[in-house]
């Protein structure tokens, strides 16, 4: 795959990649963007090569997950670098749109808080299955765990998430599909 093809593929998967990077970085936007930059850099300069053995998305997500894990290990250095970036990006966060309900914003904030309470593996599998709409098998491939282990994380994560959501006020009134 040449550089042009790689760029096209990356652009097509950019939105979902950012969502996955957010999930890998405890939903910290600055860290997620930093991880995404590093992952793209690795791919475009050939340090990470796609050999076609799996789907491009599966491979890309695995690169992002490994990059995020690597950045976590070098946490202090990353925080130092992001210190300037956070100041720069503070004023750029978009305010909620005029028509966007306050209730929805509150619900999503509460949902993010609840998600953050789950163990990392459970967060990852639930994100891949519900957010990225993947199968548990595909998720297991990205996470680098066996299918059995992925299923266990999935079931436990779902049960724990439901349990936590029961105690959250905004979800009592929320009905799906509306």
């Amino acid at each position, binding site marked *: 795959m040449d550089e042009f093809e790689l760029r096209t593929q990356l*652009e097509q998967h950019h939105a979902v990649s950012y*969502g996955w990077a957010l999930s890998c970085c405890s939903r910290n936007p600055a860290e997620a963007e930093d991880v995404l930059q590093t992952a793209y850099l690795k791919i475009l*300069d050939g340090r990470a090569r796609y050999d076609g053995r799996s789907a491009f998305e599966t491979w890309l997500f695995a690169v992002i997950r490994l990059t995020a894990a690597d950045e976590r290990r070098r946490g202090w250095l990353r925080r130092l670098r992001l210190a300037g970036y956070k100041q720069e990006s503070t004023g750029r966060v*978009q305010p909620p749109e005029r028509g966007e309900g306050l209730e929805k914003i509150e619900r*999503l904030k509460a949902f993010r808080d609840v998600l953050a309470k789950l163990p990392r593996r459970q967060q990852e599998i*639930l994100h891949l299955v519900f957010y990225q709409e993947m199968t548990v098998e595909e998720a297991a491939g990205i996470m680098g765990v066996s299918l059995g282990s992925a299923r266990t994380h999935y079931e436990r994560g779902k049960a724990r998430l439901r349990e936590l959501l029961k105690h959250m006020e905004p979800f009592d009134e929320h009905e799906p599909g509306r």
Partner: protein
Amino acid sequence: MNQDDNKLSDLFRELRDEDAQRGPSFDRVVRRAANRSKVEPRVALLWLQVGMSAAFVVVLCVTIFVFHHVKKPQISTVAEGVDTQKWAALSNWSAPTDGLLAMSGNSWGNSTITTPTDSWLQNNANESDSSQTSM
């Protein structure tokens, strides 16, 4: 999927829509990545320079240390010279009884040792001479 799964799906979908609205554009991420790839080698070069300077200082310290360390053998050579002189002096040393060893090399014939009974031997010799002549 049951109803609970649908509820979770809806929540994740809302989260995805929000992320899509607020996330950085692809061009911005790639541009920043490209800038980082330009800056990071410069930072690496800076670290290399710092490393080289540190290495130079270390080499200088080692050279100074070795220089002083090389001088010490010169002192020890003098000490070794003193030791050699001691050993040489030892070979010239003589014990008080060395004279006895020297005497053992001399012949005893220069001096005549006499005992009180030597005269008897002399007399016996004269008597035997006279008896022989009388016969």
